[in-house]
């Protein structure tokens, strides 16, 4: 009989409506009374009794809670993490960037360190207005000095503000993504926890303070 397919369609949409929405809200989440109670970690009645003001707010639909966005640890965010201590200024990242958006200027520092001469890095600009977050700069970095970031909120009104400068990179709290850094992943590091990762724990190379390294680079010479 004609019309049965139409009725089945109605049943599917009704089923979905009862199942409830799957939307992830951002930047904050509107919750109803039940959601607010769950968020406050109280049972429904306790919430009503203990925090009547919040309950009224929730009933009126004005209660908001912080949004939780679950992201993979490999998330390629746009705030690059750069470890000054690890960088030798070899400019591999700049060379291999498919778009050529990394600008590096170095000058000899005059001091010799363990793995050869270290350069002062005067300019390290990443124009993320043109970046496509492919992560190849991170992949080719031989010293694990450059990491993808984990953030994604960098809206700006002007394109020129989208350039990440060396000062910003130096000052930034380091929450490197585990993209192409399997050692980070093996250590169980989650960049979204907000934990600051010191440079000694970020790379796959030995720490220069290591005894072995001293033997290899200083004592042998």
């Amino acid at each position, binding site marked *: 009989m*004609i*019309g*049965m*397919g*139409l009725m*089945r*369609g109605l*049943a*599917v*949409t009704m*089923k*979905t409506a009862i199942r409830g929405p*799957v939307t992830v809200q951002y930047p904050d989440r509107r919750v109803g009374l039940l959601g607010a109670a769950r968020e406050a970690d109280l049972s429904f009645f306790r919430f009503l009794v203990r925090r009547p003001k919040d309950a009224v707010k929730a009933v009126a639909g004005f209660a908001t809670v912080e949004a939780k966005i*679950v*992201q*993979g*640890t*490999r*998330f*390629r965010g746009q705030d690059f993490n750069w470890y000054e201590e690890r960088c030798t200024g070899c400019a591999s990242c700049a060379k*291999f960037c*498919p778009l050529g958006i990394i600008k590096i200027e170095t000058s000899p520092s005059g001091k010799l360190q363990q793995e050869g001469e270290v350069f002062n890095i005067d300019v390290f600009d990443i124009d993320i207005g043109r970046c*496509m*977050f*492919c*992560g*190849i700069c991170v*992949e*080719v970095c031989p010293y694990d000095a450059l990491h*993808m970031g984990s953030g994604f909120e960098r809206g700006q009104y002007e394109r020129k503000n989208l350039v990440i400068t060396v000062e910003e990179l130096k000052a930034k709290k380091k929450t490197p*993504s585990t*993209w*192409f850094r*399997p050692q980070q*992943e093996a250590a169980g590091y989650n960049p979204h926890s907000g934990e600051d990762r010191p440079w000694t724990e970020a790379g796959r190379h030995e720490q220069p303070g290591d005894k072995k390294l001293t033997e290899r680079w200083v004592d042998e010479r």
Partner: protein
Amino acid sequence: MTLNSESVIVNVGPQHPSTHGVMRLRVAFDGELVTDAEMVIGYLHRGSEKLAEERTFTQVVTLTDRMDYVASMTNNQAYILAVEKLAGIEPTPRGVWLRMISAELQRIVSHLVAVGFLLQDLGAMGTPLMYTMREREDVLDLFELLCGARITNSYHRPSGVFQDAPDEFWPRLELFMANMPGRIDEYEQLISGNEIILSRMRGVGVIQPDMMINASITGPMLRAGGVDWDLRHRQPYEYYDRVQFDRPIMDESDNYSRYLVRVYEMRESLKILRQCIDQIEPGPARDADVPFVIRPPEGDAYVPIEGPKGELGFYLVSDGGISPYRCKVRPPSLINLTLLREMVIGLPMAAMIVTFGTVDINMGEVDR
């Protein structure tokens, strides 16, 4: 009775809800009926093939993401297979399995998008589209776990994938595999038996299979015309000879069969995924000896794969340097449009939009 009236020429696009991107169709209408159609493309032409000539082989992977941006993983796969054939690189088994898993997930995504937007073209208020997007989100979350990106993945590398899947990927994949069959059944309940859809899609946009073969049309469109031609089966690449799957074939070759073949292919993809998960073997996901900059010997290589939209291939020519001398994509979206004019002439406007939708094109790939 026919009226001899002047035909009206309408520009459908470049900005139009149903052209799936920036495409323009110059259509002559006699009343509601299409009397002539011409497509004008190139609004999204970015010169990817020229750009590829000045990038190293690995850097080009990022360009392939942006061709068919609904199915970046399969684009990566096709490109990497061509590079491996050109350079004679042997991929690691685990890398191959991971490539297959990601490619099949991507095929599901692409078919979900095709089905959802087809129903959007039919005027279903976006409800099926929202449902398919909901499932697409699950796959994109999986991709985010795999490679940190959702659309522009750049996951595949010569000799494997760039990094092994993280531990939390596998339970999430199992969860998705458990949910998905029920969701596909739900789409079928909502869509497949609906009388409005049946009356609008059956017997519309019919195109003969021998004509399709002659016009190089491939993919679900060809299989909906009764031709059993699936490169995963006919020219097994990667480990497709180690998995068992069926190919849904329909003989009607109309819009409805094209839609239904896609839905059934999603189920087959789930079957393949299950077998991949069962068969994947431990080991490195990538050969550490393959350098970032590879220099394939002089020569050319063409590897076609069964992309979600049809035969997707990369033809690479090397002159021994670090970047491809010539990189040519075989875009299924573009070539499947060859017979568009023949398909839509004589149809009413609404049927034209639907016929155009069942071809399932992606303008990023048409224009490159």
